């Protein structure tokens, strides 16, 4: 932790971003332990506490004493809902990114290393994918697949892999011409070994940055889809769905239902982006102190 903070020491903005990100991650992880109520358990909700402003006291003594961030139309504690929503948003964002990373990276490595027809095939596929707006593809896929966490992860995976394939390929094209790859071939090392032990680690720095940025993009795309009502079911509200939920009450003056989930989403995405930028500098071994 100390080392991590030191690595972020040159800029206080990035340091704050790191701390915010860690806090959000911990909050999401520990949501069942620290949140005043389980927002998914309808038995714990009280409809009579609907749309209470921040700081209101709860009517009946069922777990929640006070709605620090207010409550939504169904009497859900917003703080609890945000913590659980963060959990889902992060789960969806991270898992879809990891899947897309593994897939796109493998394709990109092969395209860059082998070149020729395989390269053309993979890259044309990526071109086709990238030529459609991500949200359009996700909309179509979700329309076909239906709702659910697994389905939205699939949709996000489908719109993301091409970024990794492209980034990996361009890095691999540069690296494979370097002498150490030729040396590895002359030393009789197997192709998978050259690909994953020699080529891959040297293609990673740009990828890690892209991946970190893509987590943020995936989360915001998921929020958009949920906002549009085709992402996750209302029983498992993510941040996007929470925002959508409060949207209709915004003009009635009940700002908190949309506002606090929105703040959480913005904090999360900005923090990830800032940390990703710093990560790019740290990850370069040539900049490390000896």
């Amino acid at each position, binding site marked *: 932790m100390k080392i991590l903070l030191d690595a972020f020491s040159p800029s206080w903005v990035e340091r704050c971003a790191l701390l915010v990100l860690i806090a959000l991650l911990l909050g999401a992880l520990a949501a069942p332990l620290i949140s005043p109520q389980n927002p998914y358990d309808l038995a714990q909700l009280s409809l009579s506490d609907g749309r209470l402003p921040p700081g209101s006291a709860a009517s009946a003594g069922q777990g929640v004493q006070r709605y620090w961030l207010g409550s939504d139309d169904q009497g859900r504690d917003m703080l609890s809902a945000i913590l659980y929503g963060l959990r889902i948003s992060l789960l969806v964002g991270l898992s879809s990114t990891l899947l897309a990373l593994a897939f796109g990276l493998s394709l990109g490595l092969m395209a860059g290393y082998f070149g020729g027809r395989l390269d053309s095939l993979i890259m044309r596929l990526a071109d086709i994918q990238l030529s459609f707006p991500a949200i359009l593809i996700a909309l179509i896929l979700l329309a076909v697949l239906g709702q659910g966490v697994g389905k939205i992860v699939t949709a996000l995976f489908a719109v993301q892999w091409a970024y990794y394939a492209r980034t990996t390929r361009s890095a691999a094209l540069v690296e494979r011409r*370097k*002498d*150490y790859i*030729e*040396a*590895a*071939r*002359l*030393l*009789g*090392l*197997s192709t998978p*070994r050259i690909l994953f*032990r*020699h080529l891959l*680690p*040297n293609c990673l720095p740009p990828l890690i940055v892209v991946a970190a940025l893509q987590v943020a993009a995936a989360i915001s795309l998921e929020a958009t889809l949920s906002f549009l009502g085709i992402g996750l079911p209302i029983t498992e509200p993510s941040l996007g769905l929470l925002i959508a939920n409060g949207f209709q009450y915004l003009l009635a003056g009940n700002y908190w239902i949309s506002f606090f989930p929105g703040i959480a989403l913005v904090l999360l995405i900005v923090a990830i982006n800032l940390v990703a930028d710093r990560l790019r500098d740290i990850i370069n*071994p*040539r900049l490390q102190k*000896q």
Partner: protein
Amino acid sequence: MLPPDSSRRPALLELRQISKRFSRPLDLAARLAQKLGAAISAQTVHAVDRVSLTIGRGEIVGLVGESGCGKSTLGRLALGSYPASSGQRYWRGEGGTTAIDDLPATQRRAVQLKMQMVFQDPYASLNPRLRVGQAISEAPLVHGLITAQQRDAWLAQLLHKVGLDPSLGERYPHQFSGGQRARIGIARALAVAPEFIVCDEAVSALDVSIQAQVINLFMQLRDDLDLTYLFISHDLGVIRHVSDRVAVMYLGRIVESASTDEIFAHPHHPYTQALIAELPVIGGHRRDYQAIRGEIPSPLHPPSGCHFHPRCPYAMAQCQTLARELREIAPQHWSSCILDGGGE
């Protein structure tokens, strides 16, 4: 034509009439234009043009030439790092002489492992994310030449042999100086117990004082391990110092080859003469430079006949059309110049 075998030693590696052509395929528009009768053809570079070279066991053959002459490509053809466009490589091992590229895959891999390379850029030739100890011991572990238990002792011994402190194995390449990286590159090549090493400008990037250290190391290792080198360099001084035999390349062809003493005492080809005239002599002091004229032609459009004729002070009419093969003009001394041994 006989391959120019000027060594008395038994051959280890033999290149016969080996060529490498690089061509850029035409794109769709150009192909269309060609169909319609436009005078467009794919651009082809004859990087190496029917070169024969025999390297004897234990011999150091120096390959010298200017940029774009194809010397690096020839080194990579010898290693099989580039597939040859035509021609054959022969390897003389325990089982007699064999054409390497006709061997079954497992045998070919075994022969290939006997041939390694030391690169020019000591940094680009090392994987920046592997500790140097890992980089050196990876291949012998994979090939079962050493076991994991032997690894540390083996590595310490090898690092010591190339003049590095064995404790440095845990470091990354960027933590070393240029001279140390050159030694690491040599250790990695030696790790699989090769018999033949191509040194591609292996000392050119180093400062003079460091260069001398590494040259000494190469010579020492040759004696200790009975190695054979193809030593590629643009630096005639280095070539003269290390080589037993020298081959001079110009635009994809070997124009002259002979033993080192012979070629420096009696250079025959006008190009060799021009190169040797540029050889530094410290004793001479302020001297008059008498430069050879003209630029090095583009390998895309080499001159007809003898490639050197536009720059040659002795060029005759025939030189523009006649590209003569190497012929033996004195014992073990081969030249392709028309003036040597009478042109007809």
